[in-house]
Structure formats: structure tokens, C-alpha cells
């Protein structure tokens, strides 16, 4: 990105304009492009897909009217919500209440700065990439707490408090899980971490050693909790807290929260892909456009796989209670993540360049787990009953 702007300046396109302003405008243009070309449709399509996937799992149809298979449903929803009255409760805080959705949205959107889309497609390859990511995702909690407090509604307040406690707690296992990878990779740049991995699964950090293997699951669980997803969706638990911190919101402001939530699903998957699953690494196909496209596809598919898993989890699992949530974090996940950090550090002392055999063994274990899981799945699908249609009114 920076190189591209530099080259434009050197070619004399912006003579007479201070370079700082050129950079600033370039960043804004890039942000708009990412937002409008990628993030908005992504979150929208994710919302449609989630509803369709859910519907399929719950043996119903789901939205299928707007566009082919209802794929444009998110546009219709967006227009509908834009046209709705912007309600602000009279007792709500007039400044913070309208502001909160945007804070949440900014926190989510800023992550796209360091998330790569391909080998060269990245907004800014910061050398503190992952640290930056952890930092900006924490802004979300500020927005949610603001929403909860400023609504002047007890349900919102409870939701906001739950959310704050939950996100702050789960930052720790997530951060520590990320730290294990930073140890191994020796860099915090997202592109750097990906470049250190290979295209083959046994070259991924997921299978680097047993501790990174555990760290992956820790990260994914903690990320689900940070994203307020089932089974950790207690801040917006609709059967307990009505709608949690979004209770008083309506129209587009309401939508912004969910925009962030659905987009966040992709962020979770993308970060997992960057850290553990080899990112956009593909076998060499001779560079050029084809390789770029392939890299984008590979990264997107890997990231979206976890979006699907999150949907699946949401359709399957009940919700934990708030004390169980905290117990899970502080009693199990935090100690385990420390174990991962220490274990990885020790591993690096013993095997400074990693152990090929350990990687193969972990890969084998991973395949074994996958096979067992698929067989379990097959059993469930075999035993699942489709809807009985008795042809009433003979």
C-alpha cells in the first residue's frame, strides 16, 4: 500500500501537494474501498448465510425471496433499517447513546487494516500487526459498555456489564494464545507470520507443536466469547436480558451492532487463519495474477470455514451462565494458555528450529480428530429424521 503511493508520488502525480496529505487521502480512500467493496458485503452476506445455514440446521427455509436464494436479503434489511425512525429514548444519554454503535463499529473495522487478503493485498503491513489487532478489538468493549450504560435501561446495563466482564476476561487467553505464535514466528507482523508458515498443513503453526495445537482451540473459543457468540452470547441473551445492550436501539444504529458482529465473525476466522492455518500460502504456481487470485481464494476459504463453524456452534449449543463463563475462563483457559506459552518457550529451547517429526505427528493427530468428528457427524446425519409429511385432509 505504502509502496504503491510512494511510487505514484515519485512518478510526479501529486506534485505540489504535501506528502502527508497524500498519505492521509490515500488511507481514507483505501479504507473506503475496503469498507464498501469487502467489509459491507461480507458482513451482509454473512448475515444472510447465517440465517440460511441456521434455517437448514433447524429444518426450515430461511430468507429466500430477495434475489437468487435470498442472497440480497441483507440489502433489503439495510434499506428497511435506514428508513426506520431513529429512536432515542428520552432518558438516554444524548451524547453517548448515538455514539456507541460507531465506537463498536470502529473497533471492528480497524482490524481490517492488518488483515491480509493475499500475498500483496493488505492495507498496511504493520510490524506490530497482531498487537494492534488485540488493541483495536478492545475498543469494542468500550462501545458496548457505553451502549449499555447510556440506554438508561436495566437490561442494557446488565448486558453491558456482562459484556465488559466477559470481553476483558477472554482477552487474556486469546492474547496468550496469540503470544505462543509470536514466540514461534518471532514477528508480530501478520504477513511475517504467514510467510514463516508453508502451504502444506504440516508447515502450519497449528501443527508446530502440541502447545500451539491447544492454543488454536483456546484462541477460537476465546474469540467466540469476545465476539459475543453462542455459547458465550450472554450479553445479548435474548431469553434472559431481552436483547442486552441493544435493547433500546432501533433502525440503523441497531444494525451497526450486528454489522460489527457478523463482520467480526470473519475477523475471528481470518486471524485464526493468519496465526495457525498458514494464511494465504499456496504451492508455487509461477506468480502473477493467478497466484494472487489463488492466495485470496485460499485465505478466504480458510477464514470462512471458521465463520461456518461459528454458525454451526451457534445453532447447536445452549448458552452458559455468567458464572460458568467466568469459571471456564479463569479456572481452565487462563492456566492452559499459560501452559501453552511456557511449553512453547521450552520447546523452542529444545528444538530451536522446530521438530519436523512433531509437526507430522500433530498433523496425524489433527487428521485423526477430524476423521472421528466426521464419522460422528455421519452417524448423526444417518439418524436424523426429516420432516414427516402425512398429507392431511384426504
Amino acid at each position, binding site marked *: 500500500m505504502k509502496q504503491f503511493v510512494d511510487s505514484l508520488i515519485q512518478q510526479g502525480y501529486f506534485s505540489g501537494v504535501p506528502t502527508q496529505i497524500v498519505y492521509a487521502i490515500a488511507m481514507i480512500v483505501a479504507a473506503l474501498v475496503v469498507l464498501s467493496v469487502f467489509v459491507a458485503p461480507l458482513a451482509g452476506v454473512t448475515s444472510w448465510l447465517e440465517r440460511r445455514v*441456521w434455517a437448514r*440446521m*433447524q*429444518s*426450515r427455509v430461511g430468507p429466500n425471496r430477495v434475489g437468487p436464494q435470498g442472497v440480497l436479503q441483507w440489502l433489503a434489511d439495510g434499506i428497511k433499517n435506514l428508513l426506520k425512525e431513529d429512536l432515542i429514548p428520552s432518558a438516554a444519554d444524548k451524547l453517548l447513546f448515538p455514539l456507541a454503535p460507531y465506537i463498536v463499529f470502529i473497533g471492528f473495522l480497524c482490524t481490517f487494516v492488518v488483515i491480509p487478503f493475499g500475498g500483496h493485498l493488505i492495507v498496511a503491513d504493520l510490524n506490530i500487526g497482531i498487537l494492534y489487532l488485540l488493541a483495536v478489538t478492545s475498543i469494542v468493549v468500550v462501545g458496548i459498555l457505553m451502549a449499555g450504560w447510556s440506554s438508561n435501561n*436495566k*437490561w442494557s446495563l*446488565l448486558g453491558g*456489564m*456482562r459484556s465488559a466482564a466477559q470481553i476483558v476476561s477472554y482477552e487474556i487467553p486469546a492474547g496468550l494464545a496469540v503470544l505462543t505464535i509470536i514466540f514461534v514466528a518471532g514477528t508480530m507482523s501478520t504477513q511475517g507470520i504467514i510467510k514463516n508458515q508453508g502451504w502444506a498443513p504440516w508447515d502450519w503453526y497449528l501443527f508446530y507443536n502440541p502447545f500451539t495445537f491447544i492454543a488454536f482451540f483456546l484462541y477460537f473459543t476465546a474469540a467466540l466469547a469476545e465476539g459475543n457468540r*453462542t*455459547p458465550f*452470547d*450472554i450479553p445479548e*441473551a*435474548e*431469553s*434472559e*436480558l*431481552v436483547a442486552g445492550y441493544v435493547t433500546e436501539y432501533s433502525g440503523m444504529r441497531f444494525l451497526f451492532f450486528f454489522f460489527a458482529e457478523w463482520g467480526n465473525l470473519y475477523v475471528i476466522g481470518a486471524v485464526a487463519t493468519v496465526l495457525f492455518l498458514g494464511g494465504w500460502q499456496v504451492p508455487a504456481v509461477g506468480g502473477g495474477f493467478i497466484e494472487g487470485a489463488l492466495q485470496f481464494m485460499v485465505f478466504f476459504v480458510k477464514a470462512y470455514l471458521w465463520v461456518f463453524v461459528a454458525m454451526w456452534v451457534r*445453532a*447447536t*449449543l*445452549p*448458552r*452458559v*451462565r*455468567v*458464572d*460458568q463463563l467466568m469459571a471456564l475462563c479463569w479456572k481452565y483457559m487462563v492456566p492452559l494458555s499459560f501452559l501453552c506459552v511456557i511449553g512453547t518457550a521450552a520447546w523452542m529451547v529444545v528444538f530451536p528450529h522446530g521438530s519436523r517429526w512433531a509437526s507430522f505427528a500433530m498433523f496425524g493427530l489433527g487428521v485423526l480428530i477430524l476423521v472421528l468428528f466426521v464419522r460422528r457427524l455421519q452417524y*448423526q446425519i444417518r*439418524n*436424523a*429424521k426429516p*420432516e*414427516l*409429511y*402425512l398429507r*392431511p*385432509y*384426504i
Partner: protein
Amino acid sequence: MSEAVYPESEVFHTEDMTISVGPQHPSTHGVLRFVVRTDGEVISEALPDVGYLHRSIEKIGEKCTYHGYVPYTDRADYLAAMFANQGFCMAAEKLGATEVTRRGEFCRVIACELNRIASHLISVGTFGQDIGAITPFLHALRERETINDLMEEICGARLTYNYIRIGGVGYDITPQTCDKILVFLDHFDPIIDEYNRLLSYNKIYIERLANVAAITKEDALQYNLVGPNLRASGVKWDIRRDIPYSVYPELEFEVPVGHGEKGTLGDCYDRYWVRIQELQESSKILRQCLKMMPKGPAISKVPRKFKPPAGEVYVRVEAPRGDMGYYVVSDGTEYAYRVRIRTGSFTAMAIIDKLSRGIMVADLIALIASLDVDAPEIDR
């Protein structure tokens, strides 16, 4: 609360929060309201407030003829309308010394047990939904939809049936419908296992329900809990078995009781588990009934002007929400002098005040769901 040594302003001051749960809250099945006083997430007191659905069905009973009142009883508990029908008809029949035909009795049992399955499906499904699992709810409703279709075929209505009449049933169940019910049962039995795999054995689900809001046997009797809630507390009592009515004595079925399956006796999980087992028992009863169906008329001759002699009767029916009692007083005219409907949900609601102390907000939702209270049945 504050210590005397510190001035008031320097003490970290905490306050209880008073929240109104309902009447428009997603997990108050129907319209209920709880005024909850909480210390953060922990409830110190939850006062139920009912009456939002009061339709004075008892008063209507005094203004209607016996025949004319049967459709009104449907509305007493619209999730299990068949039992409300049956209770009133049994009371009227007992007062008027009316015989019910044998085929009529079987039709009643078949319709009732189908209705019990439908009602328990709602209960189990909404239970899952209140805990946060939405898929089981839709799967349960899908099966209930099939039962609704069957019911429509039996009596023309899907929710408020008005099927059981004084002296028998309104319409005979045709052999084709019987076959369809059998097909449905063959389809449904494995589905219970599916629910178990999806929901009952789920670790999070068990953690959420086990040891939560356990009701001891003594409390259950004190508060007059009935039906599955009572059985979950370890009291083996089923009106169908213990004060037999209709053709239940001829049928073989188990009475599931709670054993503290995953936690303490009488906790939320036991109440859930008893209902799941009752689904199986109902299916068993249905199969027997379909086999034993005798030939004959479905309704006996009942005078249009039904005038039972003066007297009073208290009849109990085992509804999905437990012992449904009809106390009917006749003064010898066409109109009942007093109709009293005693329902299971009403007494179940009263215990929430006691159980809610010291549990969390999320547990309160689980408790309400586990008692399977139903607003129309509470308020009548």
C-alpha cells in the same frame, strides 16, 4: 449496611436493582411478570405478578349451558385444550350419570395423549430456547406441526379442539387417521433419541440445569405442585395410574419420576427429564390404544337439554401440567352454579417466590421454563 467507623460518603455504596421481567419478556411464556430485586446478577427476591390473561372463564361457566361451556374450557389451557375438555366433560358426566361409549373413551385417550405429546414438545422446546439452544425448539415445533395436522384430521381444529363432548367425542377417529397416527409414532420414537443427543446430553445444558432450583419433596407437597413437577421431586403419583379414569387402567405405562439424574433430586434437569420420558410413555399408550380400539358409536345419547341433578363433584385429570381439577356445582338447572378450574401452573407459579432467592437471573429463566408454566392456565 455501612460500618459506623466510616463516614457514609467514603463507604463503597451498593444498591439493589429492581427489574421488571415481563409482561413482554421473551422468556415469560405468555404474559407473566416478575418484579425482581437483584444484587448484580444474583436475585434476592422475585415476585410473580399474574393476571394479564384473566378471562374469567369460571364466571362464563355460570352463564353457559353444560354443552355450551365445552368450547370455553379449551381456552383455559390452549396448549393442552383436550385435557380441559375432558376434565369438564368428566365432571358433567359424573354429575349427570351419563355413560361414555367405549369407543368414545379410546378416542379421548388417543386425542389426549397426542395432545400431551404436543404440549410436552412445546415445553421441552421452549426450555431449550430459554437456555439458548434454538434448534431443538424448531425441531420440536416441527413434530408438533404434524400432530396439529393429525388433530385437524381428527376434529377439525389445530389448537382449541372442542373435541371431547359430554358423553363421548364429537367425531369418530377414522381407520385412515389411526394409520397415520401409527406412521407418526414410528417416525416420532427415534426423534426422542435425537432430542436427547442434541439437547439432553449436552454438557452445557446439563451444567445449566443440574442442581439449579431443586424442589424437595416436602416443598412440592406444601406448594401443591402437580404432574411432572411433582414427579420430578420423587413422588410417584400419576392420576392416570392412581385415581384411574377413562380406560387408563387397561393400558400399561410407566410413571417416570426424578432420580436426581445429573444433580440433586427435583432440580431443573429432573423436571426436564421427566417430560422427555413422558413423551415415550405417551407414545406407548397411543400404540396400545390404536390396537385396542373397539367398534361402536363414539358418543352416547345425551339429551340436548343437559340437566344434571343438584350436587357437586371434583374431578381430576392428568394434564401435561399436572392435576387439572374441575369442581362443578350443579343446582339442577341447565347452567352450572359454579365451575372451578384448578390448574397445575397456578400452584407452580406460587413456588417461584421461594425458589428464586439466591439464584441468578439466568437460573430464574431456567426455573420458569422447567416448571412449564403457561400463562392462560394460571390466569384462566
